[in-house]
């Protein structure tokens, strides 16, 4: 049950009981026609069987079935010991080459002002549930560090009177709680001291993965591990990737009347373009649009069918430094072997952040190949004069979602807007937008996690503020008869919007579809016989 005023040390008590529960009528309300709770899909509760097998002591939501109930006290204590040793490693420069300094600063400098809470879309959407305050998770972690990893910590903690016990309840809840954050860093941006709660969350996930071997299977076992072995977390093999794109080249050539051809493995091309493989499978208009645009602009470019070369995702960013570095090096080695001048990253936010900043220090020597965002790449093409456009073809309401990793975290704000202002006569901004945007709710790896009842949480809670924003941006033309386009230049964001739109019936009730940026560019090209963007299902 939801407790008013959840205390920090509640996290270490009653290991079997959830600390809170999600009830739809406690969440911040949605506007009409989405305001009737009885018309919404309910919040799935665990079955009796699931409740017996799976740890669910946080909020009744289970993000990953990878955490079974421990068999006995001994097993519980083993995990507690591992957590303690992992925590000490996080604080040592030998073991934490990536984030030690910002971690220490974020541990030491929180002034407890709570300003960040009102910046967090999850906390706001939840109806201000204490459990989801960015500072709740961080402060628990901070106090554990103080108590167990600093000199005289235990004594000082005892004297303080409200110390937190490091036990099975604390460890298992912190694990789940580290997956109730989108790592969007809106809180960090609002902090007067520069404390980064998202970083603390991510370091917790790293501790669990690298020391306890706990990570959501969608991110690890069926994520980075599958990518390094087969080529993609989707399971898409190199030969199947090529075969699929060949099918799409033909299928879209037929549909558009254009001669679409996607080049593969061209040594010495100027540009290696790395899409996300999920775009090939689920949003094929995106990779096809890039093929059309690059060819029309006369770019020397290629895709790669090496293992990992056709899927730019790097889930390591979300949970594990070692996997992050492995995937990033895999991408860079492919580019080096092809001899390209630069790598262009497709419409995928976390690929941008992993490859442009976090993995930068692992890419030295001949792996230090220039990497460019598709936002600037497309901008240069659109304004380069080689392609003729008729913006009247995009005469429908368009709004722009800012993927956190591209915009807030890398500062790539204007290129995509300059394209939309030029090519979309009815472009309108959301409020707030740019670096102040709300996350789609799928950030931090959450969009690929769908076990048990996690999708309910990420749609109803994590995506709620964003959904309100999208509806508000189109409030002047709310009905389904007006076809509207939400431009979301990031695969993970599109997946999250797909879930939100399906849950609430958004296409039927509001006429909104979500897609990428490249599709709008192709749709505005002169010479296309019929519109490229369609609100109809593929026939």
């Amino acid at each position, binding site marked *: 049950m939801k407790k008013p005023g959840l205390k920090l040390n509640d996290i270490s008590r009653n290991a079997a009981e959830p600390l809170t529960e999600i009830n739809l009528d406690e969440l911040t309300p949605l506007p009409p026609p989405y305001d009737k709770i009885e018309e919404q899909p309910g919040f799935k509760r665990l079955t009796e069987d699931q409740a017996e097998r799976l740890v669910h002591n946080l909020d009744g939501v289970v993000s990953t079935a990878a955490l079974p109930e421990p068999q006995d006290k001994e097993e519980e204590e083993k995990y507690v010991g591992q957590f303690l040793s992992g925590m000490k490693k996080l604080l040592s420069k030998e073991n934490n080459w990536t984030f030690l300094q910002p971690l220490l600063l974020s541990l030491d400098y929180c002034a407890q002002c709570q300003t960040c809470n009102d910046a967090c879309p999850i906390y706001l959407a939840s109806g201000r549930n204490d459990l989801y305050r960015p500072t709740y998770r961080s402060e628990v972690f901070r106090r554990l560090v103080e108590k167990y990893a600093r000199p005289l910590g235990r004594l000082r903690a005892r004297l303080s009177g409200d110390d937190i016990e490091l036990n099975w309840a604390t460890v298992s809840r912190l694990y789940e709680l580290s997956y109730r954050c989108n790592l969007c860093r809106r809180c960090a941006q609002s902090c007067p001291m520069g404390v980064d709660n998202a970083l603390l969350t991510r370091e917790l996930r790293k501790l669990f993965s690298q020391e306890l071997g706990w990570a959501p299977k*969608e991110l690890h076992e069926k994520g980075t591990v*599958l990518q390094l072995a087969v080529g993609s977390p989707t*399971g898409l*093999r190199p030969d199947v990737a090529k075969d*699929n794109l060949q099918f799409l080249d033909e299928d879209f050539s037929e549909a558009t009347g254009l001669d679409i051809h996607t080049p593969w493995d061209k040594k010495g091309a100027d540009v290696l373009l790395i899409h996300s*493989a999920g775009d090939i499978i689920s949003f094929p208009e995106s990779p096809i649009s890039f093929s059309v645009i690059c060819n029309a602009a006369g770019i020397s470019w290629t895709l790669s069918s090496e293992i990992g070369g056709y899927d730019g995702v790097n889930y390591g960013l979300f949970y594990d430094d070692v996997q992050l570095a492995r995937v990033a090096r895999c991408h860079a080695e492919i580019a080096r072997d092809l001899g390209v001048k630069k790598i262009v990253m497709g419409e995928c936010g976390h690929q941008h952040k992993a490859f442009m900043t976090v993995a930068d220090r692992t890419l030295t020597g001949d792996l230090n190949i220039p990497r460019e965002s598709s936002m600037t790449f497309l901008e240069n093409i659109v304004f380069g004069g080689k392609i003729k456009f008729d913006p009247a073809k995009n005469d429908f309401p368009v709004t722009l979602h800012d993927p956190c990793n591209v915009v807030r975290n890398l500062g790539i704000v204007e290129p995509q807007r300059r394209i939309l202002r030029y090519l979309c006569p009815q472009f309108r901004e959301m409020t707030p937008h740019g670096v102040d945007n709300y996350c789609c709710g799928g950030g931090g790896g959450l969009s*690929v996690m769908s*076990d048990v009842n996690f999708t309910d949480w990420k749609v109803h809670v994590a995506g709620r503020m964003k959904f309100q924003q999208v509806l508000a941006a189109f409030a002047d033309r709310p009905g389904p008869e007006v076809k509207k386009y939400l431009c979301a230049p990031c695969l*993970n964001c599109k997946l999250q919007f797909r879930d939100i739109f399906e849950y609430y019936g958004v296409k039927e009730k509001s006429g909104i579809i979500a897609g990428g940026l490249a599709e709008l560019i192709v749709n505005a090209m002169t010479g296309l016989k019929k519109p490229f963007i369609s609100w109809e299902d*593929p026939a």
Partner: protein
Amino acid sequence: MAQMELAGNTYEVDENGFMQETDLWSEDVARAYAAKENVSELTEEHWTALKYLRTYYLNNGICPMIRRLIKETGYNLRKLYDLFPEGPAQSACKWAGVPKPTGCV
């Protein structure tokens, strides 16, 4: 690991009810899944889609793109939702005994 009883046998499934050992699939398993979603009879059209899905998965290690499924079966998305109440990914893949699609799909 969760388990589910289908057509008189017990199978390992994921938390969403997808079979984990695809080799153990049979047509009766497909019928049992369908019954759970209130589809009492599998028609020729169901089988066309299910067999295409399953064969494609066994050859390629992944489920086919929706566009491909539509082209190969001749059923549009609306038709696929008529046949499979939760849609091609959530129902048809499950009934065909192949694992739930993962990754960014």
